[in-house]
């Protein structure tokens, strides 16, 4: 008899989602879906707001990566203004975005993924959480807490707030960096390096124990996309996008925010409030691609900083071409954290970093603008249209988690089909299916959007859980 296994909610990820696995009469997995079940509608209620309010409004989309939204939004506004921001402002924003990446990756690796990685997929679920990790490996717990605080404190120092800082505005930033703040950040760098090195060492020790998971956790060829500098090094805030094919060949290069929607389309599926972006020339789903740490490391030639380049060289040994298993998102995150810490130190040694000219001013010079930045989870695009008074008439956000949506669903199906046999499964097996989603570190609160008529599935249930009525749209 056919059966549906439901994992609801999926734990240890940002936001609320569920997984459904469909089994046929023989108990074989026929399908699996990752459902994002909430919808927020930010694009809609931005309409009518002045464009210069957008960064602070859009940052509220997410409490985990508000900085990336601030930056992508400010860049879209600057396209409307047709201004180029001062060098120092660009560098300060870059540092802010990297600080966010470090703290978000620390959250993903230490708090969300490490219970599986360090305690085991089959370990006692009562202890399979960060506090279990802390009890078993306190030095790693301390490293995770310290790396979170490292990133959060830089955000707090620069933006005067740890969450939703209002410091990034269209045209630059509101105030320059002081020498006291610069010195305080520099003083934190050595300990941050020490902590991420500890994490990488721990990861190296356990990775070989996950051979089976590496084989079936979203392990397939795919397209990859991310920001890159002209010299082929990784970039999080400026640069242009590159898309590579499953063999690593460049398909599109130098994709600017203005060209984004020429190249990327969006599809919808009835089972999720998250969209499914795809590479337009290939259509959906053939043109689906991955973004985020794994994709970024697959598209670049170098990290551009010494310690990270060493870690990157080790990462590239995993495959002759693009690294395919989504399990390696964890590894890629650690490489990016090394880069983030080094790059922050490099930015702070810029002789112009204390310059007080940090803002360009202008009004509405164009009626449409788009901005791109790399969020911790991948590429983020904000696209706005305004009227002659600068009021938003239309907004669209293409979020990293959405761009990974197809790969996440495919990965969950792959793992479910591998582990569930004859309709039999254990808690540890279902945890592995969830852990596929965790590799992508999806942020569901960001990713919920609707395109066209919003799909809706309404169930009226009795107190005992019986479904009394259903409406599908």
């Amino acid at each position, binding site marked *: 008899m056919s059966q549906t296994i439901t994992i609801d909610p999926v734990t240890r990820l940002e936001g609320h989602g569920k997984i459904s696995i469909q089994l046929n009469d023989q108990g074989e997995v026929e399908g699996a879906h990752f459902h994002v079940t909430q919808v927020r509608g930010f694009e809609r209620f931005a309409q009518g707001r002045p464009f210069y309010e957008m960064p602070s409004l859009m940052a509220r989309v997410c*409490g985990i990566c508000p900085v990336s939204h601030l930056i992508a939004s400010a860049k879209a506004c600057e396209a409307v203004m047709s201004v180029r921001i001062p060098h120092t402002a660009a560098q300060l924003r870059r540092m802010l975005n990297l600080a966010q990446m470090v703290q978000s990756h620390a959250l993903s690796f230490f*708090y969300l993924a490490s219970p599986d990685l360090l305690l085991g997929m089959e370990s006692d679920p009562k202890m399979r*959480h*960060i*506090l279990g990790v802390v*009890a078993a490996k*306190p030095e790693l717990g*301390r490293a995770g*807490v310290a790396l979170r605080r490292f990133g959060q404190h830089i955000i707090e120092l620069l933006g005067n707030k740890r969450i939703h800082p209002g410091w990034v505005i269209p045209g630059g930033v509101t105030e320059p960096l002081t020498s006291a703040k610069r010195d305080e950040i520099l003083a934190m760098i050595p300990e941050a390096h020490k902590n991420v090195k500890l994490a990488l060492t721990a990861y190296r020790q356990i990775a070989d124990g996950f051979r089976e998971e590496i084989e079936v956790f979203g392990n397939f060829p795919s397209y990859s996309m991310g920001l890159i500098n002209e010299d082929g090094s990784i970039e999080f805030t400026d640069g242009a996008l590159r898309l590579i094919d499953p063999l690593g060949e460049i398909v599109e290069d130098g994709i600017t925010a203005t060209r984004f929607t020429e190249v990327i389309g969006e599809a919808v599926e009835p089972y999720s409030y998250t969209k499914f972006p795809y590479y337009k020339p290939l259509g959906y789903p053939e043109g689906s691609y991955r973004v985020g740490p794994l994709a970024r490391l697959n598209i670049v030639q170098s990290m551009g900083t010494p310690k990270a380049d060493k870690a990157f060289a080790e990462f590239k040994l995993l495959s002759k071409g693009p690294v395919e298993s989504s399990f390696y998102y964890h590894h890629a995150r650690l490489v990016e954290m090394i880069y983030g810490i080094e790059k922050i130190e490099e930015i702070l040694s810029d002789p112009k970093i204390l310059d007080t000219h940090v803002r360009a001013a202008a009004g509405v010079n164009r009626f449409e603008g788009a901005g791109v930045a790399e969020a911790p989870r991948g590429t983020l695009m904000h696209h706005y249209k305004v009227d002659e008074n600068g009021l938003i008439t239309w907004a669209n956000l293409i979020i990293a988690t959405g761009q990974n949506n197809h790969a996440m669903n495919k990965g969950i199906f792959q793992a479910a089909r591998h582990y569930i046999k004859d309709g039999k499964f254990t808690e540890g097996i279902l945890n592995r299916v969830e852990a596929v989603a965790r590799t992508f570190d999806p942020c569901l609160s960001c990713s919920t959007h609707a395109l066209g008529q919003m799909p809706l599935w309404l169930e009226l249930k009795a107190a005992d859980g019986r479904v009394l009525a259903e409406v599908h749209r």
Partner: protein
Amino acid sequence: MHLETKSKLLLACGNPLCGDDGVGWKIAEAAEQDPGFADVKVVVAQQFTPELSELLGEAEVVAFVDASISVEPGVVSSFTVAAAQEVPQALTHHLPPASLLALTGYLYGRIPGRAYAVTVGASSFELSFGVEERLLDGVLSEAVRDAIPAAVALLREIFV
């Protein structure tokens, strides 16, 4: 961020946009302007997050300041907080003070010698906005606003 020479810690939490939930922030603001708190590190946050354990690991005395729904609006209370024997199995982004103390003990092998919670009874957590330049400050109910001096006085006694 470290405590440096300050081993007294005031941790206030709440959402200043949600009416009386912002009372912790207001108390922290008042404490920062009070010379009696010169040797106290004051930290405000939306929630008590695991990262605060680093500061707690260095503190000798801590006061957690928050709004409360357990007492009448405007009633100021204080009680000692002991580290939880068991920490929550599901960690999201925040912890109650007792669990945060327990986490601190796990991570750093020590907890503050004295830990207190200071709460103010709240009447409304509805979204609220101030006016003009204080737009994002939120609005406290009268009873809660009037209780701030008493809460600050209580904290002063704790940190003596």
